[in-house]
């Protein structure tokens, strides 16, 4: 492998054969003081998030906001159309027939909350993302099959190229490679 300069480096990547060794390695890496670390796996692993110190996400709040906007928007859309903009007597019912507005209000809540959830998730995950440095790693196509990876990013304040490589090698990794930008 050609040695790359640290400035052109995204990070150092270790490959593991199973989720347990990945989680164990992630715990040790976190304990060693690295913070800009990330795991890559073919399926979600709950312990891994705790291991790399990623426990909080703002998503639920985004969803709540979406639901509130959808609910208010849905109800007052109907209110404005039926009461203010063009009041029409339908079978002698009051203009503000709020119980009849509830089903559509409900559907609007669900629709907006779900869109907030999905688009919020995509935005926080920076998806769609056509290019990502990790794809430069030689075996990385296996990350969607049966291989597990741990990356220490070069942005980490504690990052030192040789030290990080040595550290990851000590963690039962199958292979440790540099990931170029």
């Amino acid at each position, binding site marked *: 492998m050609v040695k790359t300069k640290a400035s052109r480096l995204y990070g150092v990547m270790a490959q593991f054969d199973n989720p347990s060794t990945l989680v164990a390695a992630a715990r040790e890496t976190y304990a060693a003081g690295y913070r800009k670390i990330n795991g890559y796996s073919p399926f979600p692993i709950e312990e891994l998030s705790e291991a790399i110190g990623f426990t909080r996400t703002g998503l639920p709040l985004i969803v709540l906001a979406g639901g509130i906007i959808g609910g208010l928007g849905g109800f007052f859309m109907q209110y404005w159309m039926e009461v203010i903009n063009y009041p029409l007597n339908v079978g002698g019912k009051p203009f503000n027939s709020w119980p009849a507005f509830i089903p559509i209000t409900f559907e609007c809540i669900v629709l907006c909350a779900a869109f907030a*959830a999905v688009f919020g998730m995509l935005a926080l995950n920076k998806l769609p993302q056509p290019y990502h440095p990790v794809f430069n790693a030689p075996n990385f196509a296996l990350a969607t099959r049966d291989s597990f990876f741990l990356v220490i990013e070069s942005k980490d304040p504690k990052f030192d190229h040789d030290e990080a490589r040595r550290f990851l090698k000590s963690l039962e990794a199958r292979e440790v490679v540099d990931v170029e930008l």
Partner: protein
Amino acid sequence: MAVSVREVGRVEINETGQQTASFEIAHPVYSKLRSPLILGHKSYADVTRDICQLLDPKPGRGWWISFSVSLVLLVIGVVAAVHTVTTGIGTWGLNKTVGWAFGITNFVFWIGIGHAGTFISAILFLFNQKWRTSVNRSAEAMTLIAVMCAGLFPIIHMGRPWLFYWVLPYPNTRGTLWVNFRSPLLWDFFAISTYFTISAVFWYLGLVPDLATARDRTKSKLRQTLYRAMSLGWNGSNRTWSRYETVYTVLAALATPLVLSVHSIVSFDFATSLIPGWHSTIFPPYFVAGAVFSGFAMVMTLMILVRKLMHLEDYITAQHLENMCKVALLTGSIVGLAYVTEIFIGVYSGNPNEIFVIINRGLGPYAWAYWIMFSCNALVPQLFWFKKLRTSIPAIFTLSILINVGMWFERFVIIVTSLHRDFLPSSWAMYTPTITEVGLLVGSFGLFFTAFLIFLRLFPVISINEVKGVLGYAKH
């Protein structure tokens, strides 16, 4: 869906290719008492290979035969639809008394079918039913296609389908005359379009990690471009997974009341009217149970065909089918209870019109349809009490088709027998479908199977990432 790491088993797997000499299975084990969900001692690589290779080769003869037959049915439907639209609704057997019949029956039937997918992917997810992972992907696809089939009927029924956007509340030149938000038909429009959107999003979201798997594996240039675009650059990072899991749970929690609301609102189309036989407060739960019931019957029919056609016996096992039979038994019993309740309430009401509807259904000119409905929906599922029948594939297949037939007749009975003899005996009439209406029904099945067969060829039929998560559900 998420895996917790507890135990590491060690099995050597021979793998061709230089990059991966040998891999260990390291499935976390959930329970040593349960039987495994996936048979055949699969490793993660096996799962990827098994599901992805279904996309690779040229489709076999079985697929082409099914596809041609479906396409012929679809063409029949297109001809019938063109005939209806160019000539008018007069080509249908409707009359002044029976203004809703075949079209609305098909609509409610397909919407009902469309309930199983979201039930499996949302409600069973919240109840932590791991067995759903093998069937949720195709059940969700089935839902989407069924809702599309359903949506076509009211649109064709409008007579001038190109004006269907009039049901949208958009600023228009008619004095900005808005749609009537007090009408259940409009609620229906909102409910179904929301349901379709959320189901599509849910299905696509589940598909993204698997499309990334397909992207990293396929050799075809065209497919790689498609999967690359559709997988949005997914790289399986833990932060991504973590937010993905959160969103999946949130969506499941949102879709659960949604799926219950959709058929409730469909039932409001009937329940809020004054027609005896429709004007009934048990309609929402009765419709929802019937929808899940018919949806599961259709999932069972499809899954039995899919596992045979695509050799997925290790993934969709007898246990999966048995579990679905149990859901069908429960919901079928609720439907049966609703039938009996309907009779009791009708008679107990003391209202001569209500009593007449009950008698007319059981003994009138459409009694044959009523008894097909009653036997297929209330009696047939009771056979699932027997484990022998729940675990026999031919028996499940036969019973699931009977249930589908029964559920179609349920909607026919509810709609036609209530309408054809209403309050005024002078306006009583009979309804007979025309060949055009039958053609539309046939065509909707054509559309359903054509679209489903294309789905089977284009996307991973089983959720690869979720199945990997349940490999260690039990010790082999």
